[in-house]
């Protein structure tokens, strides 16, 4: 189940990463090498085995719904590459 160049383009689009033609062929080769190694997992008998998402015996963790001081607007915006009128500024979305 190897990747094709088309798959690499599709994954890059899903991952929101612009790639060059050189990167496409490099990642194609390297990702296929890793996936080939991972193909060994197909040999393992996992019938009836539940998946492990994490190892702690915890379910939902709740806290009391009490207001607390979070970041101020100034703090939240302090690292923004672009901001305007107390908001993060992004390129136009609607024409």
């Amino acid at each position, binding site marked *: *189940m190897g*990747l094709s160049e088309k*798959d*690499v383009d*599709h*994954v*890059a689009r*899903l*991952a*929101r*990463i*612009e*790639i060059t033609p050189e*990167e496409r062929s490099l*990642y194609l080769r*390297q*990702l296929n*090498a*890793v*996936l080939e*190694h*991972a193909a*060994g*997992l*197909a040999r*393992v008998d*996992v019938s009836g*085995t*539940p*998946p*492990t*998402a*994490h*190892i*702690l015996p*915890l379910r939902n*963790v709740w*806290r009391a719904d009490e207001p607390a001081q979070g*970041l101020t607007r100034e*703090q*939240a915006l*302090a*690292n*923004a*590459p*672009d901001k305007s009128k107390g908001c*993060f500024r*992004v*390129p*136009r*979305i609607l024409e």
Partner: protein
Amino acid sequence: MEPHELTLTQASGMLASREASSVELTRAALGRVEAADPRVRAFVTVDAEGALAAAKDADARRGRGEAGPLLGVPVAIKDNLSTRGLRTTCSSRMLEPYVPPFDATAVARLKAAGAVVLGKTNLDEFAFGSSTENSAFGPTHNPWDLARVPGGSSGGSAAAVAAGFGFGALGSDTGGSIRQPAALCGVVGLKPTYGRVSRYGLVAFASSLDQVGPFGRTVADAAALSQAIDGHDPLDSTSAPRAVPDYAAALPRGVKGLKVGLPREYFVSGIAPEVAAAVRTAVESLAAMGAEVREVGLPHTEHCLSVYYLLATAEASSNLARFDGVRYGFRAPASGVVAQAMRTRAEGFGPEVKRRIMLGTYALSSGYYDAYYRRAQQVRTLIARDFEAAFREVDVVATPTSPTTAFRLGEKADDPLTMYLSDIFTISANLAGLPALSLPCGFDAAGLPIGLQLIGRAFEEPTLFAAGHAYESAHGWKDRRPAL
């Protein structure tokens, strides 16, 4: 003895007896950094001003009658742990200008205990790597041989402790990122039980595997740092609501009657003969001190690497989706939100980060989820069950930390799969959520350090500290210092 040759425990003793002040030790540490870090390059950011202010504060606290093993002790922090007001880059162009408005819980606890933060240490970008060569700011060099890597991803923290830039450090470990560099730099490193230390403020890589932990020159040094950072934190929903035992009290417990398991699957081809020999000799030494040694089986070991690279990259692809050039960090302007995100990520991330995000995105994508992601989670269950079975027979499992000693800079840079193999012995503890300690157990013919890994049952860090302390007290490895 020069101040930079001291252990944390020795420095702490000098502060307590007023032989030295925190300002003196901090000045000495900063002097050592200035003299030797241009060759080692352990730090991304040195905060001399902040460190001296914290040292003055620690001395004032001691003057008012406060005490504590970390009060006034200079330490280094991996640059993926948030530090309030101090740049936190993850060694990535993406976060180069980022200044966090809060401290990670582990950092806040060290500061509350009086530790002095010298600065932020280099890592593989976003902790993706095993050599610290994947840093956007250039590689860190191994203090034992500057032509070699310090390991990774916490290579800067390991190298800092080995070089005497402070008396301890914090790192993070997702697949071996504390233990492997500790082994390659000849220092002690602990990956705590999952949930033992809060992940709040640690820039997330793989949330089900990441854990913050300490580096020290000795097991006692690492235990002192663990004592300060461990414990429940309401800000991390995966932090375990359990009391923290007294680690210093556990240190002198010894190894009499301790059952030590050697997994037969870990002594296979690919492991350097000198490494295997040193680890076997170390285990014989534990036996001579009263431990019982037997062979154990961990039959799913061969699948750990595949499971890890599927799960870790899948979680990473999700965690790193937040870097889109909107709220913080680097932005490459383009027309349109999606185009801007794609260009920002193309220019802001380095090659290994992109590679792992792509692999993880693929493993989670429609049509492949069951074959890769879900199957990897199921095999993860089998790996955890291997350890449950082994821990019915033994108390700790002993393995090499890394299959080789430090390799040369550039040696594995072009072959991701070979690089991934250097984590082959450390990954299983992350997948199973277990605590694991790496400590020096000898040197190879080239004078490079070798690491012994001890894996314990969940929340049995005290057993690891006791065994490690017994071993290192019987040997002189911890007293060796690199010639810098």
